């Protein structure tokens, strides 16, 4: 097997944000635009509060000054940008109320829309990812740690959800508020705004400094967590050994060392995160005081104010000044709060981008290619010996060529498989198989024997094109397997593996996995062939017993029997058994073998087995060593040769 890469959980690659947003926008353009517009209204509504408080204050002061009734009369309440506003408190309230109403509706609309869009997008993304994953070549799964692949679904996708549903709106909202607030601040006083800008720069520095450290320790924390997880897993798996050797105390001490390390990093990472908010919040407070004093200086010392609205405080007009300073200070607070809020989202953005780039990496992996044009079909024989294609499941098959000129040619499937001088390498450098030639004639049983890593499983991986050969040819009934549609090639090969992977569902469903249109009776028949019927009947709910967590409620041997039943129901014309009975004891194996022998009568079979008794009755046994076939022949031939096989058989050598 090629070496497994364990993904480093590092930073996001460039362009991730763009790709993600593009994908999002392409799927839901209308919803996003509506949400954005509503968000603008929402923010606008929220910001109106301060402006209207200031306007109402002005209105009250003017009313007092000129003896108007602020609730009934209409009078000039304020003048900015050279305009004089005629209104009163009642009108202001009505206008504000209307703005609020729109704001609330807008808030409801965008929140709801984004919630739906997020979920639908995540669903779409999840499905696309899964679907693409299913199309990836086996090589991908062999070279990526399964834990890392799973983590895409369990962790990374969730960070994308957080990014879209929380960080993104917050980002836009903060941006909008900042622009609005900045504008209002500038229209009041450029000098005071400068104070805020300086404060903003400091805040950015703090976010960078604290945030940077925080993420550094966060990464260390994750690494320590990984170690702790590994240690827990090792201990649980080896717990029986711990018990048997009364090693409880010692292993707890060892665990505590790792646990302490994790605690250290986690505390530091956590402190950095916790401290961010008070620091940012109080920088806002300092800014507030500074701006207040700055305003007072402008006012008291008659400094020249500079503002977009042309506002100039008049010494001796406290009310006018009060309106300005109150508004400005409120704005500066709002600004600081916003930056603070945004700083809380940064971690989500960073994590979201890192997660997204890992997911996108999977989506960018090249899917398995299939350029085959020879199909597999069921046939039935006519009385004269000729055959024709049929939709029924007949146990007889033919290869169907569809030539370019539209003509169709059939070739009966016989199960003749030839490997002709095959070379293969997983990594393109080291040959795992070299010059391997095998001739399996229809109905023969071919066995592979050899040490782990000798290349037994690799051969079967090549026959069903999990991997493609580097050199040489593999022919199936004389057809180069590259020309056969992959799906059809694999359908013609029944494979039982040592690792018996079952799926959540009933026992019946798991057997039926072999052939989806099999009836209950056919499934039970297959279970009987595999000698699984007995133990299935003893399960609490028989064939309807739910298997969960990869069938962990069954023993390894029972699971192997089920996977044999699954292959039996598939009833493929050629069988590959890769250590299929390794966890079944010799007695049961004999019973199973009786069943499979009957099933495989007249069909080609490839067998890999550790236990030599399993392969004795093969038509040919190939002894593999380091990618070469070093001995071949029947059991009797090989025993006579007194070579490697003989030594293995008599127990003089051990298989390693």
């Amino acid at each position, binding site marked *: 097997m090629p070496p497994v890469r364990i993904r480093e959980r590092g930073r996001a690659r460039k362009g991730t944000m763009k790709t993600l947003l593009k994908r999002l926008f392409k799927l839901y353009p209308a919803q996003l635009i509506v949400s954005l517009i509503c968000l603008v209204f929402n923010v606008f509504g929220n910001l109106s509060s301060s402006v209207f408080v200031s306007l109402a204050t002005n209105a009250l002061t003017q009313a007092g000054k000129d003896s108007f009734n602020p609730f009934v009369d209409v009078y000039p309440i304020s003048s900015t940008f050279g305009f004089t506003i005629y209104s009163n408190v009642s009108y202001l309230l009505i206008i504000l109320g209307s703005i609020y109403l729109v704001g609330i509706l807008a808030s409801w609309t965008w929140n709801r829309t984004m919630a739906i869009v997020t979920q639908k997008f995540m669903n779409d993304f999840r499905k696309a990812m899964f679907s693409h994953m299913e199309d990836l070549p086996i090589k991908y799964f062999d070279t990526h740690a399964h834990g890392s692949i799973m983590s895409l679904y369990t962790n990374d996708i969730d960070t994308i959800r957080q990014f879209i549903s929380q960080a993104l709106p917050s980002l836009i909202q903060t941006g909008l508020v900042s622009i609005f607030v900045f504008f209002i601040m500038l229209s009041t006083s450029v000098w005071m705004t400068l104070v805020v800008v300086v404060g903003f720069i400091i805040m950015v520095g703090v976010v960078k400094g604290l945030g940077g450290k925080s993420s550094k320790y966060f990464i260390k924390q994750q690494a320590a967590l990984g170690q702790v997880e590994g240690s827990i897993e090792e201990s649980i798996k080896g717990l029986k050994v711990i018990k048997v050797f009364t090693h409880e105390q010692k292993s707890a001490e060892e665990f505590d060392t790792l646990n302490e390390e994790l605690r250290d990093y986690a505390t530091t990472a956590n402190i950095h995160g916790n401290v961010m908010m*008070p620091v940012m919040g109080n920088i806002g407070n300092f800014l507030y005081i500074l701006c207040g004093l700055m305003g007072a200086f402008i006012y008291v010392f008659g400094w020249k104010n500079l503002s977009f609205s042309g506002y100039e405080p008049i010494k001796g007009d406290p009310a006018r000044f009060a309106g300005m300073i109150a508004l400005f200070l409120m704005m500066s607070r709002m600004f600081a709060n916003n930056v603070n809020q945004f700083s809380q989202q940064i971690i989500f953005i960073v994590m979201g981008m890192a997660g997204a780039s890992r997911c996108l990496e999977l989506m960018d992996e090249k899917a398995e290619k299939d350029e085959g044009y020879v199909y597999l079909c069921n046939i039935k024989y006519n009385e004269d010996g000729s055959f024709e294609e049929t939709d029924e499941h007949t146990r007889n098959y033919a290869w169907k060529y569809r030539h370019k000129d539209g003509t169709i040619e059939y070739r009966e499937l016989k199960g003749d498989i030839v490997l002709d001088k095959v070379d293969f390498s997983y990594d393109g450098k080291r040959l795992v198989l070299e010059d391997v030639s095998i001739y399996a004639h229809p109905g023969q049983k071919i066995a592979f024997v050899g040490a782990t890593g000798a290349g037994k499983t690799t051969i079967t991986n090549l026959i069903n094109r999990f991997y493609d050969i580097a050199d040489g040819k593999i022919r199936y009934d004389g057809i180069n397997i590259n020309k056969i549609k992959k799906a059809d090639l694999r*359908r013609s090969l029944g494979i039982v593996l040592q690792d018996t992977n079952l799926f959540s569902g009933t026992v019946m469903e798991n057997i039926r996995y072999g052939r989806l249109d099999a009836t209950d009776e056919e499934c039970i028949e297959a279970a009987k062939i595999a000698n699984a019927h007995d133990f299935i009947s003893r399960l609490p709910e028989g064939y309807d017993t739910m298997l969960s*967590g990869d069938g*962990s409620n069954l023993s390894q041997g029972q699971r192997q029997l089920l996977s044999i039943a699954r292959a039996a129901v598939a009833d493929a014309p050629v069988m590959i058994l890769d250590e299929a009975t390794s966890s079944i004891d010799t007695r049961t194996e004999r019973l199973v073998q009786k069943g499979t022998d009957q099933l495989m009568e007249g069909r080609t079979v490839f067998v890999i087995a550790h236990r030599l008794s399993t392969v004795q009755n093969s038509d040919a046994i190939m002894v593999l060593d380091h990618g070469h076939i070093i001995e071949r022949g029947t059991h009797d031939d090989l025993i006579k040769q007194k070579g490697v096989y003989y030594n293995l058989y008599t127990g003089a050598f051990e298989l390693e």
Partner: protein
Amino acid sequence: MLKKIKLILKSVREYKKYALITPLFMIGEAAMECAMPFIMGLFVDEIKLLNNSGDFFHTSDGSIPVFYLALMLLGMAIISLLCGIFGGIYASKASVGMAANLRSDLYKKLTNFSFENIDKFSTSSLVTRMTTDINNVQMAFQMMIRIVIRAPLMLIFSAVMTFVGGGMMGFIFVGLIPIVAFGLLLIIRHAMKLFMSIFKRYDKLNESIQENVSGIRVVKSYVREDFEKEKFAKASDAITTDFVKAEKIVALNNPLMNTAIHVSNILIIGLGSLLIYKSGHFETKIDPATGHIVGDWVGGQLTLGQLSALITYGIQILMSLMMISMIMVMIAMSIESIKRISEVLEEEPTIVNPPVSLNNVVNGDVDFNNVSFKYKKNAERNALNNIDIHIKSGQFIGILGSTGSGKTSVINLISRLYDVSEGEVLVAGHNVKEYDLETLRDNVAVVLQKNFLFSGTIESNLKWGNLNASEEDMWKACRIAQAEEIVKAKPEGLQSKVEQGGANFSGGQKQRLCIARAILKNPKIMILDDSTSAVDTKTDRLIRRGLKNDLPEMTKIVIAQRISSIEDADQIIILDNGHVDAIGTHEELLKNNHIYQEVYYTQNRVGGDK
């Protein structure tokens, strides 16, 4: 539930002081945060009174001058900053420390479990409990000590301040708070219920992904890609429909808060203006310097400065409500985790030391007197039925039987990895339940079917057998177990590295090292549970000979699939379906036991020339 929370809180231990001090800092921060808008209001009021005097340090009416207000604010900001920082630090120490303790406690608990206990939990579920679940508890705990006290305090402070600064205006919030709280509660309750059920299904979905990842060869072999895609899409769609339903409810949260803030603002501005206008009067004068008419509302129940302060308090009140609702969600989420963690903590080890125990195993006699055993109390079928076996010290015993016949169950009872359901197991004439567990297990060495070496070195693994073993002892044990060559072949000898799970050794090598490890214990009884299956027959024979010659006093019990491994045993026990089918020597059994005959002829079929 309360009991479970208490159980988990026991792990706070040395971090208790931090856990207690954190809320104090949070109270300080909250107090400052609430007082500041009030002082800020005064600050603004004073700034605008600077009109005539221009004096930052004195006021005419005895109120606090601008400069001192600024200093006060500065001081409060600093206090708030410090409180915030220390609160953050101590909260981290307390919550992370508590989580570390909890993890350590769980680990210790785990190692004290009997096999029966362990069989209840799957590996992945235990790992999840010790990582994700503890993490959830850590976050909830941190939230508790930081915000559970702070948020309600903020709420109360702010509410009080609205009365202090705004008089009757405070009643606006008295009316508003319960309405908002009720709304939030409704949202949380509805959404949480949905989420809980969705999360469970979401886990199931991930489980099916896991099956696809690890079973991809099966999927592809049977060309089931499209079938799996369809199945997945269906499940994913169904979850999404429910997610949308739940999220729609959650999406009411923001509008609700917006509405509350907006309504309170309108009421404050409207009623506030009315109050100022009705209860106060406007004082005007002509500024002598500029000739402008200036003035302010005075003498009323509310000033203009207070009006804007009220708005700030309003936002603070609603923010703290929001926070409280967030905590409630967090806690609700962590409840599942708490349940799962306490499930492990509450699990009582089923096998514990007897109060008065024997500390010496005198010989290697083993007797099974009419023993029956089942793995679970409510299991229908017994794993073992009426087992009667009598083994004399020093004997070599072989056990043979098919999968599920009960071989491993038998030997598990000897070292008391499980307790019998009926009958008794005696070691050296005493019931195993009378022995101190450590004594018993030190004298009954088991080499398990699933060989397991731990990451470290060969030496560190061998020393599991005997912590004080000398190098000589180790070499001797290796020699008996035929592992000497393996160690010698490694350049670093006994110091050679062992990877996690012993991945850098072959099956046969691991088995031999595991046997050496067991020999180092110098036990009275040694059990080999199919532990030479990957060893060639010649080495297998040498190991047996070594055990026989070098450790003649030791009782040897060997479970094997290969007849050759046990054919020279003093007694061979044939197990079938939980019963003893026959006991005898090789010759006897070969003559009259059909199971033995069947196995023998299977293994020696065709040119078997032994």
